[in-house]
């Protein structure tokens, strides 16, 4: 018996893989940690339940094991609610219940047919780590991206070392079976599908520091969050992207995108070396004279150069006076000019311009609160954009001396912890009546105002916890009593809130390299992306601009949002993305410095100069 409620929740899983990292200190899903296949994590179980509901997989030995391995510990509910507001526990319960009922009623466990490729893979790397059980393969067959159709792989394989990757490639070649690599067993942009083998690098989790050489050797299965956490233990930092994304996959695939690109660069700037297994199963590294030239860039769809099995990632020093601040703006033009100025003046270790949608979504633990926060930030306070900066005390002093209003970390904390009260009628009334010739945010950003804001919003972890369901209130109150949860610098390093942008709806990012010295071009592109989405009635918003290379270039993200379970929305977004692609091609053919990210796929190791200035 399928529960409609559980099915609905399962359908909404965004595949952000946040249940595969311990980003809230709750501990990790025990079954997932032990068994490594995504199928054993809450994300995989959601897919399995969806497949059972759609009657596309039978009850197999693997499925029974997956269902029984769940301890119903409740960690997934906390983790998933934090990002998407979903409560996967209902699905976990229902999956167990479904299997138990099936077995109680004498349902047969369907035997998975033997596959010679799987048998040989099992011999090579261990029986447990290669399988064609549909309960597992189905969890590697699809993702929320509306641009590519799902494909069920023939088998999934989890190597633990470079030599095992070599063996897998050779077996695949022997049987002429295609293969793809899925970092962390996830994919949200729909480009990692196959009917052949999926190689999941989740078991390759080695992290070895080489402090004298300021680098860390990272296995292909290490996530950005885990690596940053380890680097921080040494008082150091790495430039990594989304917390659940795998570092090696990110480097190789499209290069690292983060606000730290501003100081640490992108592409080849991120790593010292990387090792690959090529399509013949042979190993090469990038510091090898005979190695393929991965530092080049060409505007074309490029084939995967090999499977990146490890990378030596650069380590960066931190200072003990680092602070995160936000500089609010009411227009995109002003914000772009300021972003470029900071970068050109080498101010800030991390710099990024974000829109009101990101800001309100990131700081809010629920969708409803995010909508209210956006309304107040943009309409009442006039903060349409904000430049986020992480810097040392000299950076912060410089910015203050530039005469800009600054949302200090203390004010940021007060706003987050008082967010549920920000819509209080009386408080809003007071704010609205304050509107005069001065921008409202300029008044509220004064340091002297913070004590008043704190008392008006009654800022505290308990106040913030009011916004979440009763059974999670205590958890949230404890969570937000931890200073890092409201620390702009920490949040930028670990980026645990950025996946919230997909909470209301899944997102499809339009990512373009742009010339930051031409703000008019960026604004025109921004307007054209918006017009296209508006035409199709698709939710859309400005995302972010991260300056690169002293403000000469930048990475620009604009986002389209869709309900990935709604066929009509999928049709609309397919058309919209095609049109937006044409806009990017138009600008890239007329304006130097405009480059579409689609051509950097599989070219992430390139020198940034080859990408940005050719």
């Amino acid at each position, binding site marked *: 018996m399928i529960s409609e409620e559980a099915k609905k929740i399962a359908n909404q899983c965004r595949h952000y893989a946040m249940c595969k990292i311990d980003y809230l200190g709750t501990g990790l899903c025990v079954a997932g940690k032990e068994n490594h296949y995504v199928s054993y994590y809450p994300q995989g179980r959601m897919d399995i339940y969806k497949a059972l509901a759609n009657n596309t997989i039978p009850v197999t030995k693997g499925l029974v094991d997956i269902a029984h391995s769940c301890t119903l510990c409740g960690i997934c509910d906390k983790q998933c609610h934090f990002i998407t507001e979903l409560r996967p526990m209902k699905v976990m319960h229902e999956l167990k219940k479904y299997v138990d009922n099936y077995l109680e009623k004498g349902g047969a466990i369907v035997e998975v047919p033997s596959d010679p490729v799987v048998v040989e893979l099992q011999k090579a790397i261990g029986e447990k780590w290669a399988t064609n059980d549909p309960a597992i393969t189905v969890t590697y067959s699809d993702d929320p991206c509306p641009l590519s159709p799902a494909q069920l792989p023939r088998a999934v394989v989890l190597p633990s070392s470079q030599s095992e990757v070599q063996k897998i490639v050779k077996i695949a070649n022997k049987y002429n079976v295609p293969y793809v690599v899925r970092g962390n067993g996830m994919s949200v942009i729909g480009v990692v599908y196959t009917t052949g083998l999926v190689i999941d690098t989740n078991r390759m989790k080695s992290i070895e520091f080489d402090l004298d050489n300021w680098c860390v050797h990272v296995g292909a299965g290490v996530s950005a969050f885990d690596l940053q956490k380890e680097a921080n233990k040494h008082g150091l930092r790495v430039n990594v992207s989304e917390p659940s994304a795998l570092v090696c996959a990110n480097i190789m695939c499209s290069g690292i995108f983060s606000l730290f690109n501003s100081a640490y660069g992108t592409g080849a700037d991120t790593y010292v070396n990387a090792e690959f297994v090529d399509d013949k199963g042979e190993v090469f590294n990038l510091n090898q004279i005979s190695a393929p030239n991965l530092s080049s860039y060409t505007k074309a769809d490029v084939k995967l150069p090999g499977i990146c099995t490890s990378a030596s990632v650069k380590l960066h020093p931190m200072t003990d006076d680092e602070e995160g601040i936000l500089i609010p703006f009411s227009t995109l033009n002003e914000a772009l000019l300021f972003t470029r100025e900071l970068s050109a003046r080498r101010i800030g270790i991390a710099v990024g311009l974000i829109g009101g949608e990101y800001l309100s979504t990131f700081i809010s633990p629920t969708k409803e609160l995010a909508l209210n926060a956006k309304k107040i930030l943009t309409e009442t306070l006039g903060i349409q954009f904000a430049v986020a900066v992480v810097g040392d005390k000299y950076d912060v002093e410089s910015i203050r001396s530039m005469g800009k209003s600054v949302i200090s970390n203390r004010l940021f904390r007060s706003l987050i912890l008082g967010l549920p009260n920000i819509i209080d009628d*009386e408080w809003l*009334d007071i704010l609205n009546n304050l509107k*005069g010739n001065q921008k409202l945010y300029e*008044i509220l950003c004064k340091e002297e105002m913070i004590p*008043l804001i704190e008392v008006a919003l009654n800022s505290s972890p308990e106040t913030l916890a009011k916004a979440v369901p009763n059974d999670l209130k205590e958890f949230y109150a404890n969570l937000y009593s931890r200073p890092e949860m409201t620390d702009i610098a920490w949040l930028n390093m670990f980026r645990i809130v950025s996946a919230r942008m997909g909470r209301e709806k899944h997102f499809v990012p339009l990512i373009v390299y742009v010339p930051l010295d031409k703000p008019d071009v960026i604004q025109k592109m921004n307007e054209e992306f918006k017009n296209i989405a508006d035409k199709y009635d698709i939710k859309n918003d400005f995302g972010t601009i991260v300056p690169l290379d002293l403000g000469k270039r930048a990475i620009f993200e604009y986002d389209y949002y869709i309900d990935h379970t709604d066929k009509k929305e999928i049709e609309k977004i397919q058309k919209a993305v095609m049109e937006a692609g044409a806009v990017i091609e138009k600008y890239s053919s007329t304006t130097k410095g405009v480059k579409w990210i689609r051509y950097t796929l599989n070219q992430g190791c390139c020198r940034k100069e080859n990408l940005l200035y050719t």
Partner: protein
Amino acid sequence: MRLSTKEILEKRSNRTSINILVTGATGFIGSHICVKLLESGYNVFLIIRKNREQTAFERFKAITDWFELDPILFSKLKVFEGELEEPSLNLNSADHDFLLKNVDEIVHCAASTCFTEQKREETEKVNIFGLGNILEFAKQSRCYYFHHMSTAFVAGKTEGVFKEAIVDVDNFNNIYEETKYLGERAVSDFCRRNGIGLNIYRPSIVYGNSETGKNFRFNALYFPVKTILFLKNLYKKDIEKNKGANAQKMGVTKSSEGMIFLPIRIVQSKNGHMNMIPINYCVDAFCAIMEDSVNGGIFHLVTRDPEKLETIIEYIKRMFNIEGIRAVDVDELNKSPKNALEILFDTYIDLYKPYIKDPHIFVDDNAKEILSRHHIQCPPLTYEIFEKCMNYAIDVNWGKKLF
């Protein structure tokens, strides 16, 4: 002139035969004038903009409900849907023709009272272009008299005596003053060229009804009081429920008698004062002048006894059981940095500062000559009136409980 003095007097001797077009009838002063005109027996025509939720008539009906207008008077009222900022006032052709043929006098109250520079375009659109459109309409119609609601603060940044005349002013405190000044110039010139009689009325700051306390626009005098009350309640709650940790940081305390101490210094200028009149005086004065003045003129609707800031502060302290609020001079204020309460309060009253320390002495001889005949006098803002007005504001949650 379109009508001689004698003809105007004859016409006005029978109120029921006069059709008066009123603009700005959903505004504070405009609505009060409409109701007064209806109650006085005139036929009243209104041009009102519809909004998303309400038709033009529904908008005015909501206001008349608040006034508890006698339903019989609706027979003397006609509401037309239109927009003053648009050519031909965006009236349909039938309405346009009807009004052209039937309007005798026009009372122009429509105005944007926005002070902020960011709203310049919007304010000019209403106060200058809207005025131009209604004047053009007046020219085409049979209208023989135009009553223009202006403000005493067309005086701008001049100081001292300000007469009931068109005086050259070139420096203003805000866009409202500037556009109203330009409006006066335009309307004077236009009416003279087209033979239309003209009265210009210049009220100072208008607050609620001094007899009932009733009001539905809670700005000017009300904003600062509302802010102080908000701050008082905020810290009172902090003291009573959270042991006052935040209050302590801000220097806010509560005495054993329950008095809340709010450390707020407000700058007062030595010669400044606040010239405020109640709406009932404003309307009574307007109607008396409207009927008596047939040769045109400019009339200050002001008080001869403006209040000092200290007086209002005393009223606030007494009514709300508050201590600590002080009117100080600039030197005193600069002795120590402003706290958050002062920054908030200062920002609040920033736009109203010119009216809190208003340096003008408004001559009102023209108005007084007529008003004394009618025994109409501006009541001083006593504590009792202040209390009545604020109690009403609190009862209706500063307008939130109204329409």
